[in-house]
């Protein structure tokens, strides 16, 4: 039954929409197999309740449901999306046709201007609306570092499209308040079930991440993993076939266009974030923390409220200055004040004692961080389930270079024209929008990398230039999430493509609030 005068608040209508879309065929044809039709919001079947299934494709049933719900055939749904690429437009066209097939009219448009404000406005009255956002359907995505992120929107007053679902509230709190995987999994199962049942959100497909590599590269046995984040892929052991001049040069993409991005926002998206900055802990290809990177050793207390780690001896920055615990402390405190810090990491930082105060500008230092020589101790005011994950993604910056900087404007700092890091590669030359070259850092704590030089060109995934560069032997390794790139890369004889499962789900948000 509809809960307000917006027919989309009727679960039968939402279900009909789900049934009208033949995701299997779309994934197979339009996405050329480079997408996995979704069942739940998260891609891990372990998070689903017993017997939960995807809605599947059943236009007959969809029509019946619509008829039952008394769907107004003259209504034209307003679908918005924010990916400007051709494939999304194609996808929209296909969805439009499929919806039309069951009698639901839909027009789609690309969002312009302040996209964030247009998609995330939450009604003042989280139950009755009216809606703040100005659309019926949103084609969007959720890329998460940890599964909680998928569900946090269902907390009270967070959801722009769904009137508060009371039964979800305790579940959201449950998965955030515990570090116990079993407790969390139980919450996920229940929430997935509720969402699937009511189609509050319609998961469409899971995006995979594709690592491409040319024949010239040899990983020497190191794994392929979630390149969007930081994990140990053993870059220092990689080798590349020498070129005509006998030099071991590897090409990659994603060089900066104007400035290097702060590694706190997108933790691994840019080549430099991965190889120039080392994180405190390291993760495996699935991002599970497996040990220290900068840290020699670490320890999380039983209650999960104290985390301490000791930095390796003799760590230096690329400029030769020592990397100290002070640097780490300063970095943690500053990151809490930078609005664009990755949300999960930010959540961790805010739960440190005094973290909120620093973030709010009421204090300069976090009382919860203590230093003893090379050892840093972090005390949490409340339990955070993702401490290790956050620290496996967090890279400290050299404090000495940021004297007196306003954290809000840290990205605008000159440092980002030629960053100094702590990772296996250091920046040799940075010509914005043209190329960036990296060379091994000779004092790297794990040894010196074998590739002599990495040349990064400024093409990003989904950019036709990536394919052109690859075709011209100017892309030896890198990754893309764009399904269009995949078949093109696969077709090239000298390129290999390795799909990796990542937590990234594309979905429809269905606006159930009444609109006026």
């Amino acid at each position, binding site marked *: 039954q509809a809960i307000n005068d917006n027919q989309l608040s009727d679960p039968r209508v939402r279900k009909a929409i789900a049934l009208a879309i*033949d995701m299997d*065929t*779309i994934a197979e*044809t*339009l996405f050329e197999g480079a997408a996995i039709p979704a069942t739940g919001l998260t891609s891990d079947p372990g998070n689903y309740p017993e017997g939960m299934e995807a809605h599947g494709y059943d236009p007959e049933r969809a029509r019946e449901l619509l008829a039952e719900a008394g769907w107004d055939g003259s209504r034209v749904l307003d679908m918005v999306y924010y990916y*400007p690429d*051709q*494939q999304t*437009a*194609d996808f*929209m*066209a*296909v969805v*439009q*046709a499929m919806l039309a097939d069951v009698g639901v009219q839909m*027009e*789609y*448009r*690309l969002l*312009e*201007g302040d996209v964030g404000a247009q998609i995330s406005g939450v009604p003042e009255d989280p139950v009755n609306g009216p809606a703040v956002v100005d659309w019926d359907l949103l084609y969007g995505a959720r890329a998460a570092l940890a599964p909680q992120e998928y569900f946090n929107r269902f907390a009270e007053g967070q959801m722009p499209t769904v009137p508060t679902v009371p039964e979800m509230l305790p579940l959201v709190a449950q998965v955030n308040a515990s570090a116990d995987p079993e407790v969390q999994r139980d919450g996920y199962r229940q929430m997935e079930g509720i969402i699937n049942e009511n189609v509050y959100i319609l998961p469409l497909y899971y995006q995979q991440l594709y690592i491409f590599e040319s024949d010239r590269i040899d990983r020497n046995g190191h794994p392929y993993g979630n390149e969007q984040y930081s994990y140990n892929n053993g870059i220092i052991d990689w080798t590349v076939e020498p070129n005509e001049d006998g030099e071991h040069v590897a090409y990659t993409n994603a060089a900066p266009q104007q400035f290097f991005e702060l590694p706190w926002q997108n933790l691994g998206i840019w080549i430099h974030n991965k190889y120039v900055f080392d994180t405190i802990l390291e993760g495996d290809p699935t991002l599970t923390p497996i040990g220290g990177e900068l840290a020699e050793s670490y320890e999380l207390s039983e209650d999960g409220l104290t985390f301490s780690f000791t930095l390796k001896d003799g760590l230096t920055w690329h400029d030769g200055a020592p990397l100290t615990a002070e640097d780490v402390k300063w970095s943690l405190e500053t990151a809490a004040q930078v609005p664009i810090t990755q949300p999960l990491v930010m959540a961790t930082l805010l739960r440190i004692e005094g973290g909120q105060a620093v973030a709010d500008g009421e204090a300069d230092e976090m009382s919860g961080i203590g230093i003893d020589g090379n050892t840093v101790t972090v005390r949490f005011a409340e339990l955070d389930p993702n401490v290790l994950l956050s620290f496996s993604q967090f890279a400290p910056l050299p404090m000495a270079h940021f004297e007196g900087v306003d954290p809000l404007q840290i990205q605008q700092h000159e440092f980002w024209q030629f960053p100094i890091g702590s990772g296996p590669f250091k920046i040799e030359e940075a010509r914005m929008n043209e190329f960036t070259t990296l060379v091994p850092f000779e004092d790297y704590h794990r040894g010196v990398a074998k590739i002599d030089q990495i040349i990064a060109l400024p093409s990003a995934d989904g950019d*036709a230039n990536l*394919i*052109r560069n690859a*075709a011209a032997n100017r892309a030896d390794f890198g990754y893309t999430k764009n399904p*269009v790139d995949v*078949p*093109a890369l696969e*077709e090239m004889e000298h390129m290999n493509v390795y799909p990796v499962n990542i937590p990234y789900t594309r979905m429809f948000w269905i606006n159930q609030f009444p609109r006026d």
Partner: protein
Amino acid sequence: MSDVPLNPGDAVRSPPRPRTRRDAQFDRIRDREAARQGTKLRGGRFLSKFLNNRLAVVGLVIFASIILLSLAAPLIAQHDPKSPNLRAMLDPPSAEHWFGTDRTGRDIFARVLYGGRVSILVGLGSALLSALIGVVIGVYSGYVGGWLDWVAMRISEIFMSFPQIILVLLLVAILGQSLLNLIVIFTLTGWGGIYRMARARMLSIREEEYVQALRSFGLGPARIAYKHMLPNALGPIMVNITLSTAAFILQEAGLSFLGLGVPMSVPTWGNILNAAQDLRLLENAWWVWLPVGATISLFVLSVNFIGDGLRDATDPSQQG
């Protein structure tokens, strides 16, 4: 005045001039005139001049055909341009799909026809609209001058001090993307040129004596400007309209290429051609980009031919 007998031996006789291509042409003209003496040339000088321009006629035919085909799209296309068929993706041209299908299995022929409607609407519509604005202001202010002229001139100066593409991008950023906005943007960027041309024409026509004569009768400026002077400036205005049409259609394609054109939900030539950005399609599926690319080029070419023909036909200084 005495005459000297000319003996053939007297003069230094050079051999007769060799015949050239021109001679053959002249002989043809003479023969034709001899054949039908006295028949007068039919039709206006303008029309006959235009029709004599082979390229212009070819252009007109292509132009008219493409417009007609686009208008008659519902009758000609057997497929819906917007309905995808995922089981028929990227089919090469066949009896079923004359131009093949695109990445979602839509019939490209139908898309090109329907896309033509929008693209031509954008091109021709903006050209006409900017001509309308430019002419209405330019004709009056060119004749009367005064503050209106001053203001219009300053505004047009502002618009014309931008490189075209920068201004278009800026306006896209300001106004946002939509079909209507695109027409508005093109009109905004295009009116200045026509305004200035119309104004300049008026300034020269203003000195013609028939205008002075009308003034001496005390006729109002609007009447003199629009009724009596404007018709004499139509030639260059028409040329200008054709050229802007061509330019706007190309710009629409360029903007689509940059992803800033008409929203992708609307098929336009530019949006269809955008598929060529995909290297794989460029290499392997020529039908996705070649027919539409050819259509754009052919249409623009035909418009340019017409413009050239109009220019020659309306330019009194051109002989031949």
